[in-house]
């Protein structure tokens, strides 16, 4: 039992040190292949926004905060795009059960995001996502510069602020 506790302390410590280190380490997007809504293969490493930073949001049709986040951002998305040229990839982690709901929800909600399907959570795992919603900002070099978990009303304003900083090339935490 003592050993287990010891191991756990080690892991915790490990997690924290890595956590502290990785914020400025900048991992890139993995070469995980997922699908577009039409079923075509697309690699996460090929996500791009014409040389500008972009945003990746993990969500699911059954995740209430995710829908709150996506709906809240959708209202501002048009303005944001005009202002900053932002692009949002909404990565659905719905599996075969709820996947058929993605397309009607997307078109019914009329969000305007680039929606991709990560049916077997390949990208979710590769990016270390625990639970949706989980949001990433990726800079023009394809490096992950910011991430955030959960959603509370108002988080979308934080996101656009950080995004603007990234566009300017400022360091973000």
């Amino acid at each position: 039992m003592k050993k287990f506790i010891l191991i756990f302390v080690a892991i915790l410590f490990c997690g924290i040190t890595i956590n502290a280190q990785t914020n400025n380490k900048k991992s890139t997007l993995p070469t995980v292949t997922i699908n577009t809504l039409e079923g075509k293969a697309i690699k996460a490493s090929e996500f791009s926004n014409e040389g500008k930073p972009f945003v990746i949001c993990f969500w699911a049709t059954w995740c209430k905060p995710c829908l709150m986040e996506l709906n809240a951002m959708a209202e501002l998305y048009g303005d944001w795009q005009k202002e900053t040229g932002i692009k949002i990839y909404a990565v659905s982690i719905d599996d075969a059960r709820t996947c058929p709901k993605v397309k009607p929800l997307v078109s019914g909600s009329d969000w305007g995001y680039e929606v991709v399907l990560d049916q077997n959570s390949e990208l979710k795992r590769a990016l270390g996502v625990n639970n949706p919603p989980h949001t990433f900002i990726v800079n023009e070099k394809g490096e992950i510069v910011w991430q955030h978990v959960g959603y509370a009303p108002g988080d979308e304003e934080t996101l656009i602020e950080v995004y603007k900083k990234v566009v300017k090339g400022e360091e973000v935490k």
Partner: protein
Amino acid sequence: MKKLLLAIFLIICSFNGFSQDIFGGKVTGNFQMDVQASKEDSIIGAERVSEKLLMNAFTNILYTNGDFSAGVRFEAYLNPILGFDPKYKGAGLAYRFASYKKDYLEITAGNFYEQFGNGLIFRSYEERNLGLDNAMDGLKIIARPIKGVALKGVIGKQRYYWEKIWESDDFGLVRGIDAEVSINSLFKKFEASPLQIIAGGSFVSVFDKAEDRFIIEPSTGDNYKLTMPENIGSAAARLQMSYKAFNLNAEYARKGQDPNAVNGYIFHKGEAAYLSLGYAAKGLGINVSAKRIDNMSYKSRRGETGNMLNVNYLPALTRQHAYSLFAMYPYATQVNGEMGIQADIIYKLKKNTFLGGKYGTDLKLNYSIANSIDKEYVQLNPAGNYEGTEGYSSSFFKAGDEIYFEELNLELGKKLSSDFKLNLMYSYQTFNPIAIGHQGEKFIYANIFAADLTQKLKKRSSLRYEVQLLLTEQNYGEWAAGDWIQGTVEYNLGGKFFVAATDQWNYGKLNGEKVHYYNFALGYTKGTTRVQLSYGKQREGIICIGGVCRMVPASNGLFATITSSF
């Protein structure tokens, strides 16, 4: 072994401490820890936890360097929190892999997850909330020899708690291949065609060593031996098409003879069909799905009946509810036979219209029904049951006479003003307790309502009020404890802190004591780290995700969760 693990982690940590890049690669990962302290509460049925403190935790550590990546997951269940299989007790490296990925080739050795098509014959996945993990251990190859063609090959055994799967013949070997062709990517002249076609097919075979199984004729004592097929094969073909606003997704699968503990050792071949049709336009989305499942339990060990060792994935065609009273009666696919239909309509009333109001209104309609399939039992075996026989015959389009589940959901989402958002939901559910294995119990009919109001306050803080109400005439105990009401208030501060209070009360219960299942929660989020603490009572229930369910026993006490990504 434990020392070795410790050493590995310390090495990783120290590397990390000294250099940001390990040999030029990157380390990422995530971490989650759940701690539970529950005390005895005979009224709600919470049992004494002799360990006082229960804990589940895992951490994924992933190393990536160009085309190469490798990772481990360390898991610890000391001891498993309530509702997790006690076989999880222990700690160790549950998952490790090394992978090499090029544009046209991807090779993974060790543990991996993968899915063929919709998963009707193969899906390796994890569902942490259910304590379900059927990770493969073996080899995976994905090749994309030309644009638009993907070939996958997998071989390995599936995880079974902490069992040493390679040291025992008890665990079957799973082999599978899958091919998928995107016609539009393959042929240049179709590339811009509005008609998009993707076709695929897969074969899976499980090698499970034959075991001796006998039946005895009761009057003569004569014994009969079942001849077990050792290679259980399955095949599936699928088609995905989209034309302008329409789309279609169809898959058909068949499984060879597979007498197993779930189907009662019959030789009847398995069959699954799935069809989904959709229409998607701006502001309107429609989807209708239908499926038929006939004897499709597919496991890599024929004697297994639990949630583990599933080779395929047969999710329920019903809505996955987020409001807790709506999920009171969960439905899981009846793998031995089920026919189901589900329809979804999502419509957005436009902004600045009479009905849509200033901000527009979201409307969602969902209907689903799951029914038994027609089964014509053929012949009895000498022992007077169906073991070792063909079992039954079933005509494809004929439904059986038993309804398992039916549900109608209406949901309305509306922004009332710049500060208020309202979500209303109604559901009518018909639930047959047989769907979760309770024979001979009465149907439950329930009307369920929810209203959910979010109020934006200053300084990025917000308040959320939620009321749910469940009304049912069925009031006889465990599965139908009468009417319920639930209220929640949640306060969010600057997207960092939140506090919430919930009370769930079965005020309409006739038999037994009415209980307030109160719960207080406190959370803090910073970047990718989230800490949540809750104290209160948790009612006994069932969580079903996909085709499998887990019992969540009642508890009364403290629950803490820490999650982090790095």
